[in-house]
C-alpha cells in the first residue's frame, strides 16, 4: 500500500471552552482546563457580518476553523482548494426540514432548504473568500475524519497543491437525536501541503482492520471525544500535533479500513 506524505502548515480548532488552536493546544499539553470565559459561538471572522448573523452553526464552525488554519499557514483562502468533512451536516436544519415537511410542507423556508445541503459550509466559505478552486463536502459516517483527511491528502499530492481540510459536527436536535446524538459543536482544520519545509510531516498508510485504540486525552476533553467519533479522531491527531514530538496513531478511514499516521517534527 502506498504511503502519502503531507506537511501540516496550519491548524485551527474550535470547541466550547477553547476557541482557537493555541488554547486547545495548551489544554492538550495539560497546562490548563477548558476556558470558562470562552465564547459560546464561533466568531467566523472570515464571513461577512450579514452572513455571520444568519449563518447556521455548521457554517460558523467550519468557517471559524478554516479561517484559523489558513491564517496559521499564512495561506490566502482564495489560493487553495478545500475539503469539508462532517458526519451529519447541519443537524438542526435536518430536524427543521423533517418537522416542517411532516406538518406544513408548503411553508418550507427556501433559505433553510439551500442551507440544508451538505456542502453549505464549502459554499459559504468559497463565496466569502472568493475561492474559485475545487471545493468538496464529504462524509464517511463514523469514519468521517479519516475518510475526509484521506481525501484531502490525496488531493494535495495528486494535484501538488496545499489543501484546506476542515472537519466539524453540529449539535443534534429533535427526534433525530435518538439516531445521531451529538451534544457539543466541534470543528478542527488543517492546511496540508505536499511539499515545503513546514512541520510536522505526517506519513499516512492504509491498512485493513477495524480496531483503532486512541490514546487517553486530558479529562477536560473526554466528554467531547466520547460525543462523536469525528471528535475523537480529530482530537487524537490534534493531541499528537500538540506535543511537538514524534507520534503514531490510527483512526478509521472506512468500515474495515484503518489510516495509520506517523507524525514527525
Amino acid at each position, binding site marked *: 500500500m502506498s504511503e502519502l506524505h503531507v506537511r501540516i502548515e496550519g491548524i485551527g480548532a474550535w470547541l466550547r471552552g477553547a476557541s482557537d488552536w493555541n488554547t486547545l493546544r495548551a489544554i492538550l499539553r495539560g497546562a490548563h482546563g477548558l476556558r470558562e470565559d470562552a465564547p459560546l459561538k464561533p466568531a467566523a471572522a472570515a464571513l461577512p457580518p450579514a452572513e455571520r448573523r444568519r449563518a447556521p452553526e455548521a457554517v460558523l464552525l467550519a468557517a471559524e476553523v478554516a479561517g484559523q488554519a489558513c491564517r496559521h499557514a499564512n495561506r490566502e483562502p482564495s489560493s487553495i482548494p478545500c475539503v469539508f468533512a462532517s458526519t451529519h451536516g447541519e443537524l438542526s436544519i435536518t430536524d427543521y426540514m423533517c418537522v416542517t*415537511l411532516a406538518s406544513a410542507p408548503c411553508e418550507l423556508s427556501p433559505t433553510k432548504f439551500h442551507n440544508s445541503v451538505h*456542502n453549505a459550509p464549502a459554499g459559504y466559505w468559497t*463565496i466569502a473568500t472568493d475561492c474559485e*478552486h475545487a471545493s468538496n463536502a464529504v462524509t464517511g459516517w463514523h469514519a468521517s475524519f479519516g475518510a475526509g483527511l484521506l481525501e484531502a491528502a490525496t488531493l494535495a499530492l495528486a494535484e501538488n497543491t496545499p489543501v484546506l481540510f476542515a472537519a466539524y459536527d453540529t449539535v443534534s436536535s429533535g427526534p433525530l437525536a435518538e439516531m445521531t446524538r451529538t451534544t457539543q459543536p466541534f470543528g478542527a482544520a488543517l492546511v496540508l501541503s505536499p511539499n515545503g519545509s513546514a512541520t510536522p510531516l505526517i506519513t499516512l498508510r492504509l491498512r485493513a482492520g477495524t480496531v483503532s485504540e486512541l490514546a487517553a486525552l486530558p479529562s477536560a476533553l473526554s466528554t467531547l471525544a466520547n460525543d462523536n467519533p469525528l471528535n475523537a479522531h480529530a482530537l487524537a491527531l490534534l493531541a499528537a500535533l500538540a506535543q511537538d514530538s514524534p507520534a503514531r496513531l490510527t483512526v478509521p478511514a*472506512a468500515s474495515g479500513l484503518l489510516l495509520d499516521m506517523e507524525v514527525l517534527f
Partner: protein
Amino acid sequence: MPARIPSLAVTAYSATSALGHGVSAHVDALRSGRGSLRANDFSSAPLECCIGRVEGIEDAPLPQSLAHWECRNNRLAWLGLNQDELFEAVSAAIERHGADRVALVLGTSTASIGASEEAYRRLEDGHFPQDLRRPGIHTPHSLTAFIAKATGIDGPALTISTACSSSAKVFASAERMMRLGLVDAALVGGVDTLCDSVLFGFNALELVSPEPCRPFDARRRGISIGEAAAFALLERADIAPHSPRLIGYGESSDAYHMSTPHPQGRGARAALDDALARAGLREDQIDYINLHGTATLKNDEVEAAVVGERFSPRVRASSTKGFTGHTLGAAGGLEAVFGLIAIEHGFVPGNLGCTQPESVCERQLALRSEEREVRVALSNSFGFGGNNACLAFARADFA
C-alpha cells in the same frame, strides 16, 4: 492549468432512472425521444409538478441479509447495482485486485433523508417508530455504507455530497486515489431518490416547473425532479484496452451565491478549462456535451452562453433532463453514463422538451437525437453552493 492525466478504463457501467432499468432501456428511450416525466404522484402532500419516478422500486425489497438498510434510496441503489451485470463486474474486480484495493466513491445529495422524513410523519410519542430506528439509514453516508456492505468492497469508502455535482466529482476523487496507487479500481456513481425535502424545497425556491421541464427553451419554467441510480467501474486502461475511457475532469467553485449561478459562468468555464487540460484536448475535438441544463431560467441562460461562446456548431450539445428530470445528486453519474452511451452507441441524445431554443446556443443544441460518431463526450454538472464539475470521456482508440 492542471497536467494531463493517464486515462482510466470504464470497465462496466449502468443506469436506472424513470427511463427504465439498465443501459439498453436508456439507449432505446434516448434514441427514440421517449421521455418519462409524469404528473407528481409521489409527495406526501399534493404538489402540482412533474416528476421522473423509477418504476418498480416499491416491489423490489432488499435481500433479507441487507434488510437492515431498507429505504427507498438503498432499494434504488440495489436495483441499479443489479443491472447490466454490474454486480458481477464489481465482484470480478474485487477478485482481481483484492477487496481492500477497490475504492467506493458515491455521490448523493439527500441520501436516505426520505426515511427520516417518514419517521417524523409517523412519530410515536415523539420517538421514531420501531421499524425506522436504524441509525444507518439516517446518515448522509447511508448509500455508501450500504453499497460497501452489499458488494464487499473494503477499500476507501467516501460519500461526496455537493448537491447536484456530487456524482460527477466522484470520478475525480477516484482517479486521484488510483493515480497515487492507493487502489487499483473504484466503483463510482450516484443515487438520489424522490423525497419531500427536494420536492418542497425546490418548490419553496420557486424553481419547480408546473409542466414537464424544457431545458434551453425560451419559455422554460423550471425543473422537474427525478430519481436515478448510476454506477461506473474504473480500472487501469491496460486491463480493458477496448473499454471507453475517463480522460479528464475539472472541478471549481463559483464563489458567487448559494443557489444562483455566477452570471458569466465563471465556475462553469473554470471546470471546463480544467477538464480539457487534464484530457489534453481543445474545444474543437469535443463531439458531444451533455449539459447540466436544468431548465431553470438562470442555469440555462449562463450555460447556453458558455456553450455558444466556447464551441463551434460542429460540437453537439443537449440536456437530457427533459427525459429523466433533474436527478440531483445522481445527475452527474447518470449523465456520465449518457456520455458513455453516446460514445458506444454512436448517437447524440436530443434535448427533449425544447422547441424554441435559446438563440445563443441554438446552433450547438441537438433538439432531436442525431446518429453520429462520438469519440469524445463532456458532461457538465453544477450544484448549490456554486459547486461545479465537468467530466470528459473518450472512445478507447481516441484516448
